[in-house]
C-alpha cells in the first residue's frame, strides 16, 4: 500500500520543492475551483475551505469535506470579520480571494491525512505546517537554512505522507531527523492528536474523498444500507420508481402508529417482507437500490402514501386483497 504511493509522493514532493523555489515571490493563490461553494456541498473545495478556515482559527471541527453547519458558521464569521459585503455563507469569488490571501493550504498534507483516516488539525502557526508566525512569507522560512531547516523538513514531510508515522516511530534509528527536529515530532503529535499507531492507519486507506458524507437528517449510512438491501431483495428487476416506492412504503410505515418505529423494526418484522424471510436481504444491493432509497428519504413517494404492497401473482392472503389499492407499479400493487 505504502510502497505504491511512494513514487507519486516523491514526485509530488519534488514538484512542490521546485514549485516553491520558482514561485517564491508570488502569492500561493491557486487552489479552489471556479465554483461557488454553498452549504451542503461536498468535495475537494470544501476540504480546502475547511482547512483554510481552520488555519486561521475560524473552524475547529473535523476537516471532512462536507460543508456542514459548523463550516457555515465559520464562513459567516470569516465573512463578517474580514469585512466582506455579503455575510451569507456563500463562498464566492471575493470570499475565496480573501481566504487565499489570509491563509495557507497544504493540499498534499491534508489529503494524505484524510486518506489515512486520521484526526488532524490544520492550524497555522502552531504546527509543522508553518512554524513561522508571519503569514505572508512562510516560504522564505523554508529557504533560509539555519533555523529554517526544521520547518522545511516539516513542510516537505507532510506531503510525503509517511512523515508523521516515521516521525513517531522510527525517529531514533532514522538518520533523517536532525537535532533541530527533536521537538518537532512532539509538536506534531501533540497538535494533531495524531497518536494512532501503524495498524489502524494501514487499515483505513479507503477514505479517498474525505471522511464524511452528507446523510439525510435522522438517518445513518447504515440505515440506508439496510433499506437498500431490503429494496434490492424485494424489488430487483422492478422499474426504478417501483423500487423508490418500496423504500417509501418502509418510510410510510415508520410514520404509521401500527408499525414499529424503526427501519430495522419494520424490515425485520416477521412475515412483513418475503425477501427478508427467505434471507435474500443479505445480498449486496446495487447502486440503483441505494439511489432509490435516497430518493424516498428525500421526499419522493411514488407509492402514493402506501403502507402495504404485494405481488398479486404470489399473494396468498385474502385479507391483503380487501384493502383499498392505490396503484400498480411493475409487479407490485401498492395500497393502504
Amino acid at each position, binding site marked *: 500500500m505504502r510502497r505504491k504511493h511512494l513514487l507519486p509522493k516523491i514526485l509530488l514532493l519534488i514538484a512542490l520543492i521546485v514549485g516553491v523555489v520558482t514561485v517564491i515571490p508570488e502569492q500561493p493563490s491557486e487552489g479552489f475551483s471556479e465554483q461557488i461553494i454553498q452549504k451542503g456541498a461536498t*468535495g475537494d473545495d470544501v476540504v480546502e475551505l475547511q482547512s483554510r478556515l481552520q488555519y486561521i482559527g475560524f473552524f475547529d471541527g473535523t476537516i471532512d469535506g*462536507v460543508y456542514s453547519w459548523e463550516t457555515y458558521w465559520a464562513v459567516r464569521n470569516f465573512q463578517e470579520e474580514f469585512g466582506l459585503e455579503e455575510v451569507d455563507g456563500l463562498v464566492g469569488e471575493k470570499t475565496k480571494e480573501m481566504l487565499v490571501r489570509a491563509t495557507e493550504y497544504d493540499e498534499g498534507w491534508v489529503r494524505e491525512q484524510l486518506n489515512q483516516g486520521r484526526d488532524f488539525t490544520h492550524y497555522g502557526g502552531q504546527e509543522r505546517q508553518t512554524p513561522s508566525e508571519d503569514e505572508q512569507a512562510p516560504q522564505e522560512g523554508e529557504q533560509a537554512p539555519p533555523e529554517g531547516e526544521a520547518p522545511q523538513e516539516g513542510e516537505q514531510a507532510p506531503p510525503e505522507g509517511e512523515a508523521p508515522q516515521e516521525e513517531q516511530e522510527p525517529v531514533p534509528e532514522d538518520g533523517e531527523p536532525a537535532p533541530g527536529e527533536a521537538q518537532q515530532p512532539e509538536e506534531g503529535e501533540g497538535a494533531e492528536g495524531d497518536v494512532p499507531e501503524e495498524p489502524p492507519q494501514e487499515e483505513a486507506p479507503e477514505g479517498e474523498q474525505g471522511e464524511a458524507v452528507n446523510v439525510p*437528517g435522522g438517518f445513518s449510512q447504515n440505515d440506508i444500507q439496510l433499506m437498500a438491501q431490503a429494496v434490492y431483495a424485494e424489488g430487483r428487476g422492478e422499474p426504478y420508481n417501483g423500487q423508490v416506492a418500496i423504500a417509501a412504503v418502509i418510510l410510510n410505515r415508520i410514520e404509521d402508529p*401500527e408499525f*414499529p418505529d424503526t427501519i430495522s423494526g419494520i424490515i425485520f418484522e416477521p412475515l412483513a417482507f418475503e425477501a427478508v424471510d427467505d434471507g435474500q436481504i443479505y445480498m449486496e444491493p446495487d447502486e440503483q437500490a441505494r439511489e432509490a432509497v435516497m430518493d424516498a428519504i428525500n421526499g419522493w413517494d411514488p407509492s402514493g*402514501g402506501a403502507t402495504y404492497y404485494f405481488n398479486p401473482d404470489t399473494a396468498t392472503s385474502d*385479507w391483503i386483497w380487501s384493502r383499498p389499492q392505490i396503484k400498480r407499479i411493475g409487479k407490485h400493487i*401498492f395500497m393502504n
Partner: protein
Amino acid sequence: MGALRWIVYIVLLVGVIGALIWGYQEQQEKNAVLVKAENNYQRAFHDLSYRVDTLNEKIDTVLAMNAPDNVSPQMTDIWKITSEAKADVSQLPLTLVPFNKTEEFLNNIGEFAYRTSIRGLDDDPLSDDEIEMLGQLSDQSNEIRRDLRTIQHEVLSDGVRWMDVEVMLATNEPREDSIINGLQTVESNAESYDTFDEEVGLSAAERGDREIEIEGEEQTEEEVREIIHDYFELGDESELVITETGEGSVIPMYNASFDTEELHGYAEITREGGHVLSYLLSRDLDDANISLHDGMNEAEQLLDDLDFDDVEMVESIQYDKVGVYEFVHEHDDILFYPDGIQVKVALDNGDIIGLTAKDYVFNEQTRADREFEPTLEEVEAEEHVNQSLDVREQRLAVIENDLGEEVLTYELLGTIDATTYRVFINAEDGFEERVERLKQSEEVYS
C-alpha cells in the same frame, strides 16, 4: 471377483451409514434453529400478554387515584407499557393477520397517556370526560387481557407452536388454529372500541386521511399523454405507459412511466387540472461537474418556469453526484414549511432529474388562509430559548406542531458549542414548539 464385490458392499455400507449420521446431524441442527426461533416468538407473545395485563392494572389504579403527583408517573408508565407491548406485537408473525385495530388501540392509549402525563396534571387535572374514558379503557383493556390470557393458556396447555402458525400464515392454509382464532376475536373486539374518536383530539388529519380536492378540469388519459409528451419533450419513439390510481389514493391521479434511450422516467399527474405533482428521471450519472450552487440555480430556474415563484430554498445537500434542494412556500416573509418542494439535480450536466411538489400543491389547494400575524416581538422570541443557545439567525415560519396544527413560529438558528440547533418558538405565546439538532453529515465508517 468375490473380494471385489465385498469391497463394493462395504463401501456402500459405509456410505449409507455416513449418510444416516449426516442426516441425523442436519436434523438435529435444524431442530435447534427451529427451537430458537420458536423461543423468540414465545417470549414476545408471553411478554405481550403480561404487558396488557399490567396495562389494565395500571389504568385501574389511575382510576382510584386522587393526587396528581401520583397520576403523572402512572400515566408515563402506561405510555411505556403500551410501547413495549407494541414492540412485542411487531416481533410476532402477525403481519398477515388483521391485528392492526388492536395495535391502533394500544397506540391510542399510549398517546393519551403521554399527553396527559406531560401536560402538568397539577394545574390541569383529569377532566370528567377523561376519567370516563379511562373507565372505558379499563373495560376494553380488560377484555383484551382476558382474550390474550386465554390464548396464552391454550398455547401452554396444548403446546401450540408459533412456528406452525407462521407456516400456516405464510402458506395461507385454512386457518383453524387456536392462536389465530383467538387473535381474530381480539381484533374484532378492538374494532368496536371507538373510545378515541374525536374525544382525545386525535383528529382525522393526524391519521393521514385528509380530504383533498384539486381544482381544475378533469383530464383524460389522452390529454395526460399529451402533457407528458410536452413536459418531458419525449420523442415519438419513446414508450409511454399511463395508468390511473385506484380508490386507495388520496386524490385521483395518473401515473406515467416512460423509457427513452437514455433514461427511465415516471411522473404523477393529477386527474383534475393535470398538475405534474412529482417525477423522477433515472439514468446513469457521470461524476459531478457543476457545483451545488449551479445546481441550485437550475432548480430555481425550473421552479420559476413552472410558476412556483413564491418559494425560498431552505436546504441544499449534495449526495455525491446529485444535489437535492428543498424549497418552501414564502408568503409575506413567512416560510411555510408544510408546503415543501424537493428538486433533484444531476450535477454532471445540471439536468433536473426529479421534482416533487405534492405537499405544495395539496396545501395550496386546501389552505383556507395564509394570514398569520405574530403577536410576539422578534426580540422577545429570543427570551424563550435556552440561554446557552447562541442565536445566529431568526425568521418567521409556519410549521405543523405535534398536534398537527399549523402554527406561526419564530425559527431560530443557533449554536451551542459546535452543535447547531433549530428552535421554533410560537409567535403568539412563546411556547417552544420544537427543538431540532441539525446534523447532516456522517463520517465514513471503514
